Each structure stands twice: as structure tokens, then as C-alpha cells.
């Protein structure tokens, strides 16, 4: 069988750690102690014996003992001139071991990373490439069946090794597969900071046999990276882990994973993810490989569902060319010809200053940055090389190498570790440069921008543009070996602002050509230098026209744009009329006989001044009285120029009057708009920020007595509850509507509330709490308040409360008004009724309200003979290396956008809502995801475990380590009378297995959200907090899936997120404190079983988990188990 046809390849185990255990005659080292590669020639029998031990364990691929057998490493032992000899001997030793065993196995030539890091400038491209080429040639000549470039720590080293290996393979005309194996540290990146997506983007253009991981950690530590590769790389994926994370015991390195555990973890990657090359790295013995073969007996790798994402990358991260929300923005300002600032910095040899221009564009949201250093009188190659080196180390987004000189392009490609985009090729010279640059792109794995320019000049008509693109495509793909996805076509656009009659349809022509290129050349992307369209027009109007044109381009299929990323206006910020005038110009639509679209455009924008801060929309507003302007600013949530406006107003009326006569009524109007569904919660919070900022500015102009006007409200989240978002929203709304709020924080006991209420003589008390238990705490607090003599109104809010519960269970316990408030505005309205003297307790009319239904599984009795799957292990484990980006696909976007953030469609048209989501909500979401990762707001960790368990009536008994824990679960009081214990077998039925997990995204998110609240950034506070809550939920969803997979009941991945919502999978997870098991006291045994202290999660005295963004659940495998409420 050919190697490419083998279903699973079994590599051998460790070299170094096993050689250390073997008896090597001291004389064999010849003074070169530690140079294992030398043993190939000095003690071949030892090496053959090592190979034999793995052959008899069942390895089907032997790696040669040549990890460091290159000139760079061997020169440290004075062996630089014996590279070929040592590699030859090494292949011979492996072959001899195979011959002696009489078996068939493949020989893989091992190529290690050397001791130098080229990304950090330790070594240049050429000497490193020469060393790899020499080794690869010797290995292939000696008969290696494949090469493995392994333990890669530096992305540039990977590329140099691949370019060298493929150079040799091509020159020798041999079909030798080349594997790449990366080493990703437990920090989640390669040694120099590259994440798996960035590495894959740079490697996948090469014709490698497989991409995978080895060393650094055990299999578990590789989970998220292995998943990423299996889901986004079309070729084979390899996994060759250590026997766990090395630990030092008694001064000796020890690898903790037993052969059984190692085999089970690694086999799961084959079974569940489709890994098809496995083996062992440091600490793995022949026994590890034997167990691995046993574990995979009769197993075929799971079929994979690969979604390729053509990407560029920096040294650190990848950027997809096809953005989820196009376009891919390429910053244009690092161009010596296009930007005077950048040119001046370059002319002054101020490279760090020039680098700052790139970093600014990264800040502005560019996905990649263009770099052009060609300028008359300068040495382009020297400048470009120096800048690329700086970019490679300091810029997080990929680099676009902008040059017309192939030598300069090649010099840059040799320096940059990531996957670059080359700007650009065309057919102006008949194709000479095109050939050279396409071949460079092929060799170095880069992508290429192609301009539709042919020998007669720039293509002007749609037909010409498409034909030129096709000609370039055919050469690049069929002759020079690039893939369509490596190409980005710029069909060029020309200004429609010059009045040139031949160019009036230039923009429309470009849009039509983009459409046709996308249709007729499948797989390619399109790109445009957008700002060309508006040359000759005023700067302020250009910004609007460019933005509208870009929007039209995206609609036509444009994928990428070279543009000043900071100057793109979202469509929602461009007034309808401005947009129309732009569209008339773009499509040359003449609206009147007298006036051309261009003249109409110029006249319309005549008064538009260039404005950095203000949007075009603001600049168009006519002057209005300052009183009205302030009210409009509150409603619009606009803080710009607030100080100036308030100082004008202060000259006309006192501060207190500005607040009471202008600001409070404006906020009242905001509340009305919200109440009618005409304003969404996030905008309300922006209005509240304007209010707060205004009051802060006005405070110094008021008397103390004036500042203390207004009724006082005490707010608290009740004892045992750490959730404060609801209470803080009430704080924001009340304090910005003229009430003075005393916010006591979270977990506030009744005694403290009573004490503070008396001391501060508050006019009302507001209690909040998210948990089911908190509703009960509120009910218990009220008689205590009554006994302490309090009579002020008490407002109650929280997710678990209902009007009925408040009216029937809470109102009777307190002599004053007790009022149910569904949200912060209901709280405001209650306060207003109190002011008017019309506030009364919540009443519940059972006759007028239908009882809530009880949805849930119904009908069939719970099957007792459901098979019990075998747990992968028993006991608890802790996982602290989860890449937050793995979680984002599990985020419930609908619940986040519409529910937590409040971006509901309500009365909007479907189109308006789609525009809101596309133009505002989704970009904010993307930005939060990016920031969450960059600012390390997430540290996802999980404590989980599998345990033997059985049902005993309504109680689940969990047994572990000779002890038993009891989980009494409540039973529904109405049919079908379900209880979680029903889903488990009794002891007599043979017992069962239960899973538990505690999952957290860590403390940092709580700190970051708290900081936003205290600095009055209400809008950002809600957005970030809600995002954190949903990512925590996503972690639970992700981990539940992981646990189902461990149990072998995962089945097919649900096709869309909506399938997770309705539990289209086997089994269920029930969160403690939620409707199926509201009692938090179950946390006590859960914490004894899982020890979540090891992932930084602790319990409060009232059994709540800290940090706030933590969730827990019991995992039930029974197919009939689904959500229900007791």
C-alpha cells in the first residue's frame, strides 16, 4: 500500500527520553555528549535496538534519529562536514531494524527546528535554507519515504524548511510527502507568539502531506488546536503529543500520562475529529504506542467537515480574506507615494515613526496594512526590508507588500514569517513580471493582487476588465500553479468627479466588472482602491461618496478594499438624502434636465466641511436654539461638544433649571420612546451617559442643597446573589431621571438594608436578584423589614419573579407597597407613581390571567433500559487551556443581540433591522470578540468529571473513592411529574454514570465590566457584561458537547446554532439554580467532587459561585432527558 493510502499512520515514540534509559557505551559519544545524532555512526546497534522496540510495539512509521542532523546544530559538535553521512546512517539504521523484524514500515526523515529563531533575527534566510536543503537531500537520497519538519517553534523557520524541502523534492523529481508538525506551548501559541490559525494560513499554500502538532503538552492540551486544524485544513492532520506536561520530581523530568490514558486521549482525536496520523513525543515509551494501537484497533478516522478560510497572517494571527462582514480593509497610509506623512518619516530615516502609521491603521480597524517604500532617490529594497522586519515583529495584522520590483518583493517575502499579500501584478509588459511574481508567490506561499492592465493600458470597459482578469487568472493558475483563492482582482476604478464625459459611467462599469469576475472566475476574490472614484471632489464629500461606493461594491461582491480604514462611514451614519445624491452620481442617474448628477452632488455637499469628529450627518444640521440642541443630544446619545453647549446654557439659566427643565424632561422622552418600542436599550444607555456627563459638568454650579434634591432610593442585590447587572441598570435609569440612588452592591443581607434605610432615611427600597433562590430571599426579607418598622415602598425585580409570586407571596409580608417591576423602566414608573402618591402594591387577578403553561417532555414514560455509555475516566479533571475563539461559534447570537443587548426588531421593517444588525450590532460584536482575545478578557477554565451514580427515589447517589454523595432533586408538582433522578438507573437496574462540570471565563471580565460601570460608560458596560454572560454560556455549551463526545453519544454536530437551542442532541445539562434544579445547595457535593478551587472558582456561604461569570451543571446522557421546570 502507498503511504498516501494508509488510513492511519502510527509514528513511533520518544527518542531522547528513551535513549537516556538505554545502555550506551561512554566511548560512543567520543566527547560529544548529548549529540544523539552522532550515535547513528558511533553506536548503530543502540539506535537499531531503539527502533526495534517501537516496531514490536506496532509503529508503522519510524522516525530517523536526525532531529538535529543539520549543519547548524552539528557545527556545535564539530560535525558540520558530516551531515550527509549521519543522515545516511540514520536512514540505514531504521531500514535495518525493519528488515530484521521482517515487517513493513515507513521511514520518516526527521527534520528539527535547529537552535536558531529566524523571526527574531538569529539567522538569515539563506544559511538556514542551505542547512535544511542539505539535510533533506541526504535523507531522500538515503531512501527516506517521507520527511517530517517537526517541533516547529518559529513560523519563519517552518517556511524556510518547507521552501528548502520542496526545492529538493522538485530538483530530485521524487514524490516524497512532507509533513509539518508545530509545537504549540501551553500558552496557546508557538514560542514566538503565533497562534494556530496564523500558522495554518502561512503553511496551507504549500503542498504539504499533513499539518499537525507535536511536543509541548499531552493530547488534552492540544484539543482546541487539533480541532481547529481538523475543521479548517483540507489535508491530513497529525498529532504526536508528549506523555503529558513534563513535571520535575526529585530533580528528574517526569511525564505523568500512563500508556492507557495517553492512548485514550489520543484515540479520541481520531474517532471524533478525524486525526489520521498519530504517535508519541517526549516521555512516550513503546508501551504508549502499543496501547495506542490497541485503542485504535478497527477504528477509522472520523469523516471531517472542513471549512477552508483563505487567510493572510502576521507572525501572530490570521485574517480571513472573506470577512464575515465584508470588506477586508487594507490600510493605505504606509505608502511613500500616497501619504506625505509616511514619506517624510521615511525620508528622515524614522522607521519607528513609520511603523506607528501602521499601528494607527490597525487601531482604526484595518485587517491588513499595505507597505510601499518606493520613492525616487531612496533605496527601495533597503527601506522595504527594514520596514518588513519591523512590521513582522510589531504589527498584529498581516502585511501587504506593495512593490513593482520582483527583487524587492522576494527580499520582503524572505523576512516576513506570516502569509503576505503581494501588490501587484498586471499584463502591462506582456507578462514577464507577472511570471516572476507569480512564481515567487507560489514558492513563498503568498497571495497576489492582480490589476486589470494589459499591453494597451488600463482596461476601461466591463468586457476588457473581465477579459484581462481571465487572462491573468489562466496564466497564474494553469501555468504558474497558483490557486484561484490566491488571487485578488482589482478591476480598477476611475474618478467620476472630474466631469470627463467618457468617465461618467466609470463607477457603474467597475461594479458590473466586479460582479462578472466573481461569477466567471470562481474562487477568486476581488479588491478595489476605492478612493480613486472621487478624485477631484472636496475632501468631506469624498468621504461620503467613497463610503457609499464601497457599500455598493460589497453588494456587487467586492471582498477587499484598499482604503483609509478610519474614514469609512457606516451607512447608518449617512443621511438618506446624501446617500441618494451619491447613488445618482455612481449610477449616472440624471434627475433633472438642468443639472447633471455631478453638479447636483457638488451643490448638495457645498456646505459640508471636512470634519474629523462630527459625522457628516451632524454637519448638515441647521442651527437650533441651545435648549433644543441639548434635548436632542440627550435623545441622540451624543456627548460631542457638551461642555460648550452647557456653558452657553449656564449664561442663560441656573444649573438646577438646566437639569430639571431640560435634561429630566429629555430623559422622560427617552423613556417614552423606549416604552413605545421606538428606541432600543443600548441607545437609552447612551442617552443616560449624556445625562450623567451633563450633571457632572453642572454639579460645581449648584448649591449643596440643590445637589441633594430628589428622592432617595436604596438598591441592593439580595443576600446570596452576585448578579448586579439588573440592579445597576435600575441605578443608571433612576439616577439619570432625577432620583438619588444609594447602591449597596451585591449579596446584601437584610440587616444591612434595614440599617442603611434607616440611617439615610430613604424614600424607597429596590431589591434585585437573578436566581430562583433570590425570589425566596426577597419573600423572607420583607417580614424582617416590617419588624424593623420600615414602611417605605419596596420594589422587586429579577429574572425568577412573576407578578403572581410578588402579589401572592411577597405583598402579604409587608405593610407598605410591594411592587413588581419587570425592568428598569417599570422601576422608574413606580417611582413616578410614588411621587404622585398613587403607588400601590402589585395585585394579581387570577381570573383575568391565564395560568402559565408547563412545556416540557410529555407522554411516554422514561425508558429504564437505556444503555449506559462507558465513561472515558472516573473522577475529576481540570482544563485550563481553552482558546476563547473556540467558544465564539457557540455564542447564542440571537439571545445576545435581541435579548441581552436589547437590539430587538420590534416595529422595524425586516430591511431596517437587517441594516441595524449588519451596520452596527455585528461590527460591535466582532470588535468585542477581537478585543476580548487581545485584552485577555477571557481565561476559560473547566473542572469536570465522570462518576458512578444511581437513582434512589428522587435522589441521585454519586459514589466515588469509597464515599457517597446525595443529590436530592425536586419533582414537578404537575404532570408529567418529572425529576432529574428519573433519568438514571437504580442500583438494582445496574447503576449509571453522571457527569458534572463547573466552567468559568475567569475574573478579568468582571473587573473590566465593573470598571466601565464606575466610569459611567453605561452603554459599553451593558454590551461587555452581556457578551461575557453569553460567552460563559457558550463555554457551557462547548463543554457539554465535549463531554457528550467523551461519552461517545455526540453523534453528528448540530448543523446550526439554533439546533443547540432546542437540544437536538442526546441528553441534557441541567444548571444548578435554574428551573430543573433551583436548589444551589447541590453545589456543596459538586465542589467536593470536582475541586473547582483549582480553576479559581469558589463558593460563597450561600452556595453561589465566584467569579460571577461561572456556570455549573449536571450532565445527563439519557435520550429522553430535556429541559423542564419544577
Amino acid at each position: 500500500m502507498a503511504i498516501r493510502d494508509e488510513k492511519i499512520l502510527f509514528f513511533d515514540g520518544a527518542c531522547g527520553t528513551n535513549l537516556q534509559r538505554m545502555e550506551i557505551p561512554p566511548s560512543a559519544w567520543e566527547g560529544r555528549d548529548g549529540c544523539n545524532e552522532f550515535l547513528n555512526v558511533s553506536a548503530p546497534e543502540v539506535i537499531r535496538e531503539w527502533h526495534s522496540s517501537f516496531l514490536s510495539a506496532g509503529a508503522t512509521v519510524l522516525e530517523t534519529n536526525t532531529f538535529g542532523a543539520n549543519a547548524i546544530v552539528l557545527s556545535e559538535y564539530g560535525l558540520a562536514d558530516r551531515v550527509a553521512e549521519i543522515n545516511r546512517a540514520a536512514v540505514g539504521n531504521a531500514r535495518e531494524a525493519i528488515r530484521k523484524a521482517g515487517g513493513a514500515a515507513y521511514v520518516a526523515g526527521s527534520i528539527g527546528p535547529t537552535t536558531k529563531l529566524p523571526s527574531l533575527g538569529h539567522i538569515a534566510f539563506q544559511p538556514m535554507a542551505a542547512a535544511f536543503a542539505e539535510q533533506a537531500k541526504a535523507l531522500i537520497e538515503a531512501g527516506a519515504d517521507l520527511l517530517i519538519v517537526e517541533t516547529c517553534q518559529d513560523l519563519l523557520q517552518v517556511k524556510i524548511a518547507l521552501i528548502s524541502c520542496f526545492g529538493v523534492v522538485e530538483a530530485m523529481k521524487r514524490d516524497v510527502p512532507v509533513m509539518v508538525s508545530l509545537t504549540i506551548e501551553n500558552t496557546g501559541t508557538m514560542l514566538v507568539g503565533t497562534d494556530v490559525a496564523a500558522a495554518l494560513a502561512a503553511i496551507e499554500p504549500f503542498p504539504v502531506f499533513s499539518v499537525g502538532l507535536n511536543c509541548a503538552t499531552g493530547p488534552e492540551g492540544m484539543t482546541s488546536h487539533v480541532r481547529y486544524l481538523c475543521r479548517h485544513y483540507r489535508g491530513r492532520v497529525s498529532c504526536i503529543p508528549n506523555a503529558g506536561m513534563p513535571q520535575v520530581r526529585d530533580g528528574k523530568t517526569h511525564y505523568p500520562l500512563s500508556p492507557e490514558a495517553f492512548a485514550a486521549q489520543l484515540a479520541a482525536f481520531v474517532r471524533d475529529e478525524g486525526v489520521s496520523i498519530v504517535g508519541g513525543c517526549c516521555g512516550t515509551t513503546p508501551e504508549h504506542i502499543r496501547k495506542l494501537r490497541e485503542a485504535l484497533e478497527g477504528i477509522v478516522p472520523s469523516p471531517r467537515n472542513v471549512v477552508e478560510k483563505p487567510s493572510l497572517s502576521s507572525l501572530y494571527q490570521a485574517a480571513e480574506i472573506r470577512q464575515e462582514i465584508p470588506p477586508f480593509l487594507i490600510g493605505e497610509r504606509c505608502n511613500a507615494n500616497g501619504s506625505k506623512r509616511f514619506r517624510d518619516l521615511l525620508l528622515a530615516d524614522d522607521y519607528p515613526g513609520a511603523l506607528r502609521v501602521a499601528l494607527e491603521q490597525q487601531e482604526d480597524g484595518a485587517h491588513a496594512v499595505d507597505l510601499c517604500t518606493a520613492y525616487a532617490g531612496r533605496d527601495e529594497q533597503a527601506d522595504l526590508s527594514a520596514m518588513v522586519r519591523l512590521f513582522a515583529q510589531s504589527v498584529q495584522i498581516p502585511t501587504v507588500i506593495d512593490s513593482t520590483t520582483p527583487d524587492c518583493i522576494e527580499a520582503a517575502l524572505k523576512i516576513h514569517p506570516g502569509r503576505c499579500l503581494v501588490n501587484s501584478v498586471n499584463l502591462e509588459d506582456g507578462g514577464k513580471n507577472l511570471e516572476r511574481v507569480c512564481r515567487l508567490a507560489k514558492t513563498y506561499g503568498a497571495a497576489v493582487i492582480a490589476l486589470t492592465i494589459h499591453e494597451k493600458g488600463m482596461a476601461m470597459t466591463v468586457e476588457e476588465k473581465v477579459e484581462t482578469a481571465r487572462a491573468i487568472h489562466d496564466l497564474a493558475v494553469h501555468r504558474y500553479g497558483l490557486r484561484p483563492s490566491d488571487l485578488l482582482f482589482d478591476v480598477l476604478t476611475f474618478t467620476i468627479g472630474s466631469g470627463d464625459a467618457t468617465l461618467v459611467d466609470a463607477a457603474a462599469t467597475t461594479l458590473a466588472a466586479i460582479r462578472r469576475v466573481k461569477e466567471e472566475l470562481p474562487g477568486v476574490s476581488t479588491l478595489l482602491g476605492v478612493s480613486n472614484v472621487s478624485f477631484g471632489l472636496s475632501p468631506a464629500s469624498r468621504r461620503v461618496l467613497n463610503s457609499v461606493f464601497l457599500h455598493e461594491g460589497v453588494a456587487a461582491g467586492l471582498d477587499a478594499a484598499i482604503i483609509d480604514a478610519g474614514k469609512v462611514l457606516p451607512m447608518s451614519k449617512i443621511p438618506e438624502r446624501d446617500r441618494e445624491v451619491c447613488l445618482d452620481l455612481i449610477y449616472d442617474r440624471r434627475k433633472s434636465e438642468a443639472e447633471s448628477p455631478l453638479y447636483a452632488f457638488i451643490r448638495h455637499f457645498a456646505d459640508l466641511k471636512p470634519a474629523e469628529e462630527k459625522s457628516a450627518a451632524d454637519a448638515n444640521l441647521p442651527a437650533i436654539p441651545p435648549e433644543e440642541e441639548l434635548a436632542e443630544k440627550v435623545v441622540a446619545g451624543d456627548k460631542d461638544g457638551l461642555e460648550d453647549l452647557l456653558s452657553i446654557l449656564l449664561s442663560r439659566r441656573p444649573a438646577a433649571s438646566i437639569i430639571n427643565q431640560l435634561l429630566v424632561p429629555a430623559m422622560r422622552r427617552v423613556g417614552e420612546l423606549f416604552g413605545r418600542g421606538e428606541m432600543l436599550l443600548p441607545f437609552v444607555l447612551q442617552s443616560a451617559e449624556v445625562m450623567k456627563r451633563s450633571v457632572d459638568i453642572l454639579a460645581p454650579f449648584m448649591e449643596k442643597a440643590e445637589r441633594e434634591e430628589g428622592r432617595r432610593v436604596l438598591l441592593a442585590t439580595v443576600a446570596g446573589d452576585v448578579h448586579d447587572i439588573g440592579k445597576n441598570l435600575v441605578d443608571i435609569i433612576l439616577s439619570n431621571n432625577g432620583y438619588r440612588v444609594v447602591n449597596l452592591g451585591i449579596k446584601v443581607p437584610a440587616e444591612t438594608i434595614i440599617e442603611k434605610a434607616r440611617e439615610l432615611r430613604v424614600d424607597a427600597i429596590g431589591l434585585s436578584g437573578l436566581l430562583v433562590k433570590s425570589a425566596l430571599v426577597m419573600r423572607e426579607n420583607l417580614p424582617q423589614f416590617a419588624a424593623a418598622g420600615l414602611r417605605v415602598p419596596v420594589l422587586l425585580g429579577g429574572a425568577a419573579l412573576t407578578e403572581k409570586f410578588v402579589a401572592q407571596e411577597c405583598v402579604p409580608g409587608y405593610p407598605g407597597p410591594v411592587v413588581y417591576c419587570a425592568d428598569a423602566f417599570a422601576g422608574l414608573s413606580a417611582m413616578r407613581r410614588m411621587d404622585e402618591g398613587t403607588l400601590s402594591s402589585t395585585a394579581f387577578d387570577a381570573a383575568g390571567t391565564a395560568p402559565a403553561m408547563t412545556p416540557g417532555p410529555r407522554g411516554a414514560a422514561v425508558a429504564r433500559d437505556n444503555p449506559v455509555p462507558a465513561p472515558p475516566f472516573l473522577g475529576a479533571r481540570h482544563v485550563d487551556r481553552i482558546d476563547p475563539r473556540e467558544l465564539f461559534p457557540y455564542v447564542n447570537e440571537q439571545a445576545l443581540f435581541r435579548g441581552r443587548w436589547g437590539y430587538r426588531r420590534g416595529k422595524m421593517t425586516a430591511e431596517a433591522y437587517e441594516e441595524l444588525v449588519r451596520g452596527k450590532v455585528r461590527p460591535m460584536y466582532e470588535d468585542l470578540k477581537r478585543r476580548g482575545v487581545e485584552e485577555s478578557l477571557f481565561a476559560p477554565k473547566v473542572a469536570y468529571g465522570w462518576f458512578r451514580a444511581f437513582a434512589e427515589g428522587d435522589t441521585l447517589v454519586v459514589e466515588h473513592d469509597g464515599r457517597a454523595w446525595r443529590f436530592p432533586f425536586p419533582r414537578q408538582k404537575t404532570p408529567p411529574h418529572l425529576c432529574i433522578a428519573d433519568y438514571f438507573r437504580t442500583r438494582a437496574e445496574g447503576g449509571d454514570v453522571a457527569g458534572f462540570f463547573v466552567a468559568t471565563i475567569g475574573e478579568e471580565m468582571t473587573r473590566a465590566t465593573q470598571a466601565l460601570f464606575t466610569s459611567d460608560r453605561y452603554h459599553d458596560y451593558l454590551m461587555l457584561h452581556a457578551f461575557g454572560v453569553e460567552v460563559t454560556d457558550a463555554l457551557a455549551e462547548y463543554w457539554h458537547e465535549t463531554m457528550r463526545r467523551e461519552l461517545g453519544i455526540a453523534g453528528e454536530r448540530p448543523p446550526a446554532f439554533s439546533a443547540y437551542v432546542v437540544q437536538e442532541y442526546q441528553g441534557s445539562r441541567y444548571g444548578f439554580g435554574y428551573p430543573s434544579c433551583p436548589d444551589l445547595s447541590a453545589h456543596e457535593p459538586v465542589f467536593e467532587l470536582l475541586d473547582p478551587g483549582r480553576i479559581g472558582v469558589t463558593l460563597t456561604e450561600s452556595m453561589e459561585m465566584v467569579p460571577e461569570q461561572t456556570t455549573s451543571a449536571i450532565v445527563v446522557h439519557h435520550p429522553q432527558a430535556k429541559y423542564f421546570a419544577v
Partner: protein
Amino acid sequence: MKKYICTNCGYVYDPAAGDPLSGIAPGTPFDELPPGWICPICYAPKSQFDELE
């Protein structure tokens, strides 16, 4: 017929499918759901549903 989504959990009420978990027959428009109907997944009240595009 118009579909509605639960803003709390993302469950979609599709009139064509009804809601078997609550015994709602296929073909029941959202507006004609009984007054006590709640989200079958997260128990949010009807007022928390939003029209889907």
C-alpha cells in the same frame, strides 16, 4: 406565516410546526397562541418574543 424568536434563548416559534412541547397544533399563528403560552425552552413570556425577518 410570521415566525417569532425568543429573545432570551433563541427558540424560534414556527407556526408551521406549532409547539409540540406545549401541545400547540401545527398551523397556529403566533397571535393565536393561548394567553398562558411561554417559551418551551426557557419559559420566557410571550412578550419577550420578537418577529423574525
